[in-house]
């Protein structure tokens, strides 16, 4: 690879928003045919960089050279024309159009009077899909595909547009482990056929498994561009956060207390059935499994966000009437949903109000006690080290990690007995992740019963005292963390090793 001319070269690229330097004099090269990872904490400038390359933002200063020519796209179509395809986290597949139409949208094969040549369209789409090793009917509406396959459609789109530089923003963040692996196989094939790929990821194991080189951004500056063969994961993390991180191993509460939450025979037809388990005071129970195994659905049913068809949930021995979040909250259950922005945050409301919502403090007649709420918010900002201009700042301005801390603080304010955290650190940078982990551990030490749902096995293993594995809507294993490893849990989740029924149900 060395010795070739770079396909893309950035020189002192800067971008400033009203208050912040999003990028400051960033320079690096991307070589043709390499897979180049872009890493950094949230707010490091990765998204800004991608938007500039994709033509969604203009750089304030600096020059970009693409294939030896100056490159300054004024809009996304110019970037596409220059051979760059950007695949954003939010996929742009149009659900009611067919797979083939999605792939060739913008360049549909048509005859002289504009009627689409459906046969040719499907033939071309089939050819591309075969090339990617995907057995999908091109006539199928794209919305019916699983999210992992939709991502493949995005890749097929970029191939149809004859892009030779693919840029992917956290491509596996919503994929299951298996879908993610399939994606990386395809990416590796693309590289072998001469394409260049830049991707952003928070998952360092991916970076090491697939990328040739990595560029680290921190606070808008480039810290380093390195061959991954030359560095260790610890060194990479140090570059990202600017100091060394110590991962705490799972600390087991000396003596977990009595059962706080007990679930018996919970069922939702078509989603999950026969769910029985309990969580004790001071215990963190991890829920592992593939995306779609039914973990989130179970949690939502316990919390009352979705209805359940059968089963009992008790909190400290008292039965909870299912199907209504308000009753669950009153019983002492807190639920951190997997999708912060869609399901938890009021982006245009202040930090204070976001934090106050489930447990607003009032004087009388429903009049808000603003002094008490401000004190409480300021207190949580300090305790959880939430970085914000003020407690009056809109949460849309905060980074993902700080937003998640706000959601956590909101539930802590009501002093729950049970905390259900669904993907508590998804899309959150390394530093904030460690802080949230520490917080969950200390809450458990104070006697809270905690459930953590996570698709990241290292997270499950380092947090939980006990691990429940779900597959196909059932709990297939109940392991003490000492007996567990990534291999064992991962195997159970995909059904490679047989479940141990003797252990199921605690």
């Amino acid at each position, binding site marked *: 690879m060395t010795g070739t001319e770079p396909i893309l070269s950035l020189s002192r690229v800067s971008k400033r928003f*009203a*208050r*912040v330097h999003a990028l400051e004099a960033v320079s690096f090269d991307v070589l043709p045919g390499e897979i180049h990872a872009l890493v950094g904490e949230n*707010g490091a400038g990765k998204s800004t960089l991608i938007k500039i390359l994709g033509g969604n933002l203009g750089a304030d200063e600096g020059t970009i050279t693409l294939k030896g020519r100056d490159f300054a796209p004024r809009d996304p179509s110019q970037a596409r024309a220059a051979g760059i395809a950007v695949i954003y986290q939010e996929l742009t597949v149009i659900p009611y159009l067919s797979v083939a139409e999605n792939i060739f949208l913008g360049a549909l094969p048509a005859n002289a009077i504009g009627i689409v040549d459906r046969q040719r369209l499907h033939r071309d789409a089939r050819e591309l899909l075969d090339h990617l090793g995907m057995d999908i009917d091109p006539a199928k509406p794209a919305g019916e595909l699983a999210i992992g396959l939709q991502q493949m459609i995005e890749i097929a789109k970029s191939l149809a547009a004859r892009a030779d530089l693919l840029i992917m923003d956290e491509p596996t963040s919503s994929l299951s482990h298996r879908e993610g692996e399939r994606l990386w196989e395809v990416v590796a094939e693309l590289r072998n056929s001469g394409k260049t790929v830049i991707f952003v990821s928070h998952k360092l194991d991916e970076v090491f498994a697939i990328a040739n080189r990595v560029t680290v951004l921190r*606070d808008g500056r480039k810290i380093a561009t390195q061959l991954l063969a030359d560095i260790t994961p610890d060194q990479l993390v140090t570059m990202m956060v600017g100091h060394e991180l110590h991962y705490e191993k799972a600390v087991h509460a000396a003596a977990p207390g009595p059962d706080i939450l007990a679930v018996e025979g919970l069922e939702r037809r078509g989603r999950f059935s026969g769910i029985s388990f309990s969580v004790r005071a001071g215990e963190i129970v991890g829920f592992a499994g593939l995306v779609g195994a039914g973990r989130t659905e179970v949690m939502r049913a316990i*919390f009352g*966000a979705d209805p359940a068809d059968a089963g009992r949930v008790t909190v400290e021995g008292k039965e909870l009437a299912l199907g209504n*979040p*308000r009753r669950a*909250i*009153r019983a002492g259950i807190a*639920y951190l*949903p997997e999708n912060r922005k*869609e*399901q*938890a*945050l*009021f*982006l*245009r*409301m202040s930090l204070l*109000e976001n934090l*106050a*919502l*489930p447990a*607003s403090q*009032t004087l009388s*007649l*429903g*009049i*808000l006690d*603003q002094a008490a709420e401000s004190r409480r918010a300021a207190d949580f900002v300090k305790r959880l080290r939430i*970085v*914000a*201009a*003020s407690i009056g*700042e809109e949460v849309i*301005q*905060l*980074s993902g990690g700080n937003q998640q801390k706000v959601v956590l603080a*909101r539930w802590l304010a009501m002093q729950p007995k049970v905390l259900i955290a669904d993907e508590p650190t998804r899309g959150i940078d390394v530093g904030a992740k460690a802080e949230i982990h520490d917080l969950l551990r200390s809450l458990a030490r104070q006697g809270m019963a905690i459930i953590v749902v996570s698709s990241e096995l290292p997270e499950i293993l380092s947090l939980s005292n006990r691990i429940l594995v779900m597959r196909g809507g059932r709990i297939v294993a109940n392991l003490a963390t000492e007996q567990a490893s990534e291999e064992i849990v991962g195997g159970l989740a995909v059904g490679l090793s047989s479940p141990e029924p003797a252990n199921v149900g605690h």
Partner: protein
Amino acid sequence: MSDTSLAAQEPAFRRIGILARRELVWVVLFGAVVLLAAASPNFLTSANLLNILRQVSIVGILAVGVVIVVVAGNFDLSVGATLTLAAVISLQMQPTDAGRTVLSLALPLVLGLVVGVMNGLIVGRLRANSIIVTVGSQFVVIGCVLLYVAGQHVRVDGATPFYVAISAGYLLGIPIPIYLFLGIVAVGHFLMRYTLFGRFVRAIGGNAEAARLVGVPVARYVALTYMLSGAAAAVSGIVLASRVRNLDPTVGIGYEFSALTAVVLGGASLTGGRGNVPHTLAGVLLLGVISNGMRLFGLSFNLQLLVQGIILITAVAIDARGKAAGR
């Protein structure tokens, strides 16, 4: 990244710029007042200003109800019909003695709340599209009114002084409807800004699913917003009835769009979550000042309708553009 020291260092002009954009409707209102004051010596007189305030009070009271519904993420296009219903019933009660006067104030309010509850339950519980539901209830209400009065005008002769004073009375030299209007503005603002109700409503409009998951009883509060706007429409109707005392039973049609225009001018987001009562007040005043200005220059009523349409579209376009730039 985002610390206080940076915010403090922001140059003054930028802070003023941010403030001006947030308070755009007040800036525009101020500009309109200055322009008209310069153009006509009759504009900036206390008589004319009080006249404007009195003129806008009916639409203004409606708009306070409408903005609350809009902040919760819904529409209420039935307020013009509810206003008509309240006005017609109020006169039909023939407020010629004390007892009947009480009835002609209370019954319209009750009916306004009833229309609100029905809108609210259908939109809140069944999650039906609020535009369609309230256009439908508009027809139902107007239809009931027309059947009830058989298409005839309703009138009252010899109304009690108290009833007449609602629209024509003065207190300390200021017309009573202005007190009613500003009082309802104050109550609306207090509700939205300082109570749990307001917080819940803003949360529902900002993110209904998240609101449900923090335990906000969404359907109940959506129903409450419609009850408030039904009640506000009833008050407007009573003021109108007190003023005219001889009503065409289709009088209120179109009022809902004037109220909505004021709400949009006030910068409320039509998808919910953003909007407040003081800005709506400014929107109402802006509408009043523009129509007063047109009258001062002798432009016809027909032209005013056209101008109001253009204002509504412009305000929505500015709102949409702001949203596109914000992303």
